[in-house]
């Protein structure tokens, strides 16, 4: 990493660490910060498979929900400490990723077929969670409020903010490692051209299963954190399509396959969300800001896909990545 990049990262980290203090620990600011970091983390989990390896999924909620339910079931029904249940939930996410990967890549699914199959898995898990007894079906699962660091519950939301910050930084480090390591180079090769990758000695099936397991593990970690923060999950919260779409959107808007894409995308998304909420408040005709926010997201996405295929990170990319003739100014 260059000196300036290192300084920028260090500066960003310090700013993120000081951010809640700057706002005097206001709950609004801290929660907004949490939401951005949390969305960036989930987006990065998607990005690792969808961006770096080109295996775009529409159903990442399957991993999120697996993590949320795994730790919550262990905690609520079996009395596990959430800190201990967390790694099990992460392993469960990895296992589901490896399982879905094995099935779909064995069947040779690529592109939109793979995306649709992941969506189908997420829906199947949602329906399953609605019907089996150990998830308590559509009632959902309540975690008894007992704020104590040892219970992975905090009275002050600032601690969730810092937890999300740690996860986010770890996921950024992982993404950075992918830009430098052999594993990452293999993923990029698979994304760009699978036949050429195979010709050059890459076991594309194995690498794709691995990356989906890694992505699933990360996403499941987010699921547990969500459950511990909001103390309630149900099948549509855990496995809902909107979760999958948000992860994908955050990554695509910021720049799929880039280190900071999901973080930027998460910032943009929540900025838009807040602005439309304000607008919604100012215009009483718009009772519910949600549809408006979705419309704005949609427009942004169209603009990004149409004009910045590499996401907003594409703006900062090397110039020579532009088609010839546009590179000179």
């Amino acid at each position, binding site marked *: 990493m260059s000196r300036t990049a290192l300084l920028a990262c260090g500066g960003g980290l310090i700013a993120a660490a000081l951010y809640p203090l700057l706002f005097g620990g206001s709950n609004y600011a801290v929660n907004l910060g949490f939401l951005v970091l949390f969305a960036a983390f989930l987006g990065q989990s998607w990005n690792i498979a969808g961006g770096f390896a080109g295996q775009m999924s529409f159903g990442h909620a399957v991993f999120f929900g697996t993590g949320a339910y795994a730790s919550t079931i262990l905690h609520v029904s079996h009395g596990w400490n959430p800190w201990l249940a967390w790694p099990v939930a992460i392993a469960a996410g990895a296992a589901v990723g490896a399982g879905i990967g094995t099935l779909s890549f064995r069947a040779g699914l690529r592109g939109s077929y793979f995306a649709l199959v992941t969506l189908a898995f997420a829906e199947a898990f949602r329906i399953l969670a609605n019907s089996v007894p150990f998830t308590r079906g559509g009632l959902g699962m309540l975690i008894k409020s007992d704020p104590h660091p040892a219970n992975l519950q905090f009275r002050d939301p600032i601690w969730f903010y810092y937890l999300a910050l740690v996860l986010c930084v770890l996921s950024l480090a992982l993404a950075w490692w992918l830009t430098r390591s052999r594993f990452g180079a293999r993923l990029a090769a698979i994304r760009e051209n699978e036949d*050429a990758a195979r*010709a050059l000695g890459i076991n594309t099936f194995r690498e794709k299963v691995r990356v989906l397991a890694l992505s699933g593990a990360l996403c499941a970690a987010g699921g547990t954190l969500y459950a511990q923060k909001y103390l309630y999950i149900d099948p549509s919260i855990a496995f809902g399509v909107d979760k999958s779409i948000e992860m994908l959107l955050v990554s695509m808007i910021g720049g799929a396959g880039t280190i900071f894409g999901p973080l930027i995308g998460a910032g943009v998304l929540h900025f838009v969300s807040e602005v439309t909420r304000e607008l919604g408040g100012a215009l009483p005709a718009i009772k519910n800001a949600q549809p408006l926010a979705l419309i704005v997201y949609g427009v942004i996405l169209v603009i990004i896909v149409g004009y910045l295929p590499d996401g907003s990170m594409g703006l900062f990319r090397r110039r020579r*990545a532009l088609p010839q003739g546009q590179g000179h100014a």
Partner: protein
Amino acid sequence: MLEVHDLTKRFGGLTAVDGASLEVPQGAIVALIGPNGAGKTTLFATIAGFHKPDGGRVLFRGEDITGLPPDRICARGMVRTFQNTQPFAKLSVLENIMVGAWLRTDDRHACQQRATEIARRVGLSDRLDDMASELTVAGCKRLELARALATEPRLLLLDEVMAGLNPTEIAGIVDVVRAIRAGGVTILLIEHVMQAVMSLAEDVFVLNDGRIIAHGPPAAIASDRGVMEAYLGRGAAERLLGDTAHA
């Protein structure tokens, strides 16, 4: 080095490779020629594990590799290039070559050094940071070669690496191929540029309609115009004989 026995590959009703046999001795440059649609690329792809053969056997360094997947075959030291070049378009030239080099090392520094060294050998040194998508046809062909070479093969299968190049570029690639062989790599190449075949190969196999119909030193194969016409059909004979004129 390589022995192919009665290899057959069918696509539905079409028998693209029909009981083809050939042999490539260690250290040699052997050419595979034949008209368009003869099945040369399919034969390469089947040897290299991209197609499951419908019959026959492939022996590489004395071991049966029939039906192994391409990555395992590559790991054993046989690598193919693609006639329709398949660059990793959004990666730089250096990153493209590094993908090949990562096969033999997991150290980034060593990988980068090796890739840089190979880029020098194929004449891509001044394009290292360019996107692969920006390369010319000649550049893409060199990149195919470089990536394959980076996997440290014992046997290199080159599928028309000179097609579409001008005479200067062809001369450049011919020198590169010669240097590769001098470095101890055995080469089997598909080529339409007869001049290159003549100057490089010590042995030529002629494929037509999926069958090997002739085999011998290049002079014997190329000097006989009648054989050319008969075996390769008018179009190919024209191309081969007119080669000096346009290439």
